[in-house]
């Protein structure tokens, strides 16, 4: 155990060193991610100055909805950069190095690389949005609600981690899943910034049962905000940590299955 911790700290130290080798550059890159993502929010802000609300959600409630999305992604990417970039890892042959070492593959993938720019950009934006909205949307930050919030964040991280892990596993079979990721993850994430009640039924079903972003932000926000557009059973509001755990376990089993089919790429 002790040497596992030591190894983790070694990996973290070297990745942080590599990412922050050029300090000004690191700050600017994090800022660039922050601003890129913030632009989308600003557009909504201006829209809501005209329309007042979207399906009953005012600007602060919308910002709170967004904050969950960014915060979970920011935390997730600290751990799952290696899975996000898994296609490259396989193609460049670095994955062979992991295989040749006597440590768990997932352990190595998770700790060998962290995209700190994305983490700071997304996470920073998430925290900013949270601070802007958290005390203006009428949430009573009791211990229960705070605990609920923490479990929800953890669940949201696991849900997105599971998606990345599944896509990474598909990489083993197809060697290239970037467009699938673009289609499934990034496009659906654009929808996820809005309350799913504004979309038609097909998209809602997709966002609950296929690419369950609804559990990352919509249902948790409903628990805390109790908006009138909620047309699903109340039970959905409590499922985020369970959905996250189950999805992650399933993705992990799929990974264990897929890894047996891994073939080193030629050179």
């Amino acid at each position, binding site marked *: 155990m002790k*040497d596992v911790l*030591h*190894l983790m700290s*070694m*990996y973290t130290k*070297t990745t942080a*060193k*590599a990412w922050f*080798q050029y300090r000004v550059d690191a700050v600017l890159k994090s800022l660039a991610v922050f601003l890129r993502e913030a632009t989308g929010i600003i557009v909504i802000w201006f829209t809501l100055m005209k329309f007042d609300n979207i399906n009953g959600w005012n600007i602060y409630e919308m910002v709170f909805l967004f904050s969950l999305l960014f915060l979970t992604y920011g935390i997730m990417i600290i751990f799952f950069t290696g899975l996000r970039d898994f296609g490259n890892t396989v193609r460049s*042959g*670095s994955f*062979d*190095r992991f*295989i*040749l*070492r*006597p*440590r*768990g*593959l997932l352990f190595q993938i998770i700790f*060998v690389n962290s995209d700190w720019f994305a983490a700071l950009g997304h996470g920073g934006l998430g925290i900013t949005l949270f601070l802007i909205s958290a005390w203006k949307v009428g949430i009573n930050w009791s211990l229960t609600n705070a605990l609920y919030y923490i479990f929800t964040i953890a669940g949201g991280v696991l849900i997105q981690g599971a998606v990345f892990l599944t896509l990474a596993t598909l990489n083993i079979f197809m060697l290239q899943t970037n467009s699938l990721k673009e289609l499934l993850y990034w496009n659906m994430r654009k929808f996820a910034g809005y309350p799913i009640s504004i979309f038609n039924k097909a998209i809602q079903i997709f966002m609950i049962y296929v690419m369950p972003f609804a559990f990352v932000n919509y249902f948790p926000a409903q628990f805390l905000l109790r908006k009138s557009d909620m047309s699903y059973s109340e039970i959905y509001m409590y499922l985020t940590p369970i959905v996250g755990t189950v999805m992650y376990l399933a993705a992990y089993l799929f990974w264990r299955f897929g890894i*047996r089919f891994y*073939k*080193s790429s*030629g*050179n």
Partner: protein
Amino acid sequence: MINFENVSCRVLKSISLNIPKGETVGLIGKSGAGKTTLIKLAGGLLAPESGRIFTLGKDPVENRNLYREKISVFIAGTPLLCRDDTVSQGFEIIRSVYGISKSDFAKRYEALSARLSFSKYGSEPVKNLSLGERMRAEIGAALIYEPELLILDEPNIGLDENAKFVLGQLLSERRGAGMTTLLSSHDMASVPKICSRIALLDKGELVFYGSTESLRSRYTPTNTMSLKIEGRLPDLEDLPLEKYSINGSAISLSYNSNHVTAAEILRTVLRQTAVSKVSIKKPDLEDLISKLRGSKNEFY
């Protein structure tokens, strides 16, 4: 240590090969002959399409993570040290991954880095090193946790003569301690010197597998020499040549380098006449392969 039973995969066609403990086997062949494929199969990075492989008695793909600290695999495309890490950081990660005590590791590092002379750039990031510098550090990284089985893919690339010599020394010392080595190369000149056995691959087939001496004795090295003579033609009858032909002032001759050296031939010629141009052609891997292929059945 490594056992191939009728293995086919990509270019490789039903390879059977047994590498006993303590041997240093040189895998030789032209590019595309299947060297890296064979190495990857032995290291468990590839599964065979048919046939069976045992590395240290187990299927290397099924048991990928179970005995990794006993095997060291270095493949040129898969460096052991990360590009962004400094050399000593990379080694520290290896120490940590393989759970070696700090004091042991420091001793080994000192010895290896001095002999492979990479101690002076220990604090340089790997990406700033030249090819030769990087290869020396990589070889050190492959050896430092003292594996039972060492598999090296093209370790000679980028190494100067001195580093090749040190590599040979290190391998023979470790061989004395019981390490088995499989290394691939297209370098016909230096590999047989450091190997106890040679496996020769051509177009996915194993055309020769046996001791280095048996390769040498089976294969009589015939060199050819071309001379341009100034003045009268020399008498070559006393030399043990295989054949020679004279065409105007040009002489071309072939000889067995075990029986007569180029220097002896030249001395004889120069005693009699003047020479304006000399060129010597030694047989290369291609000649060896075609020779072995021609009489392939003898070796099985």
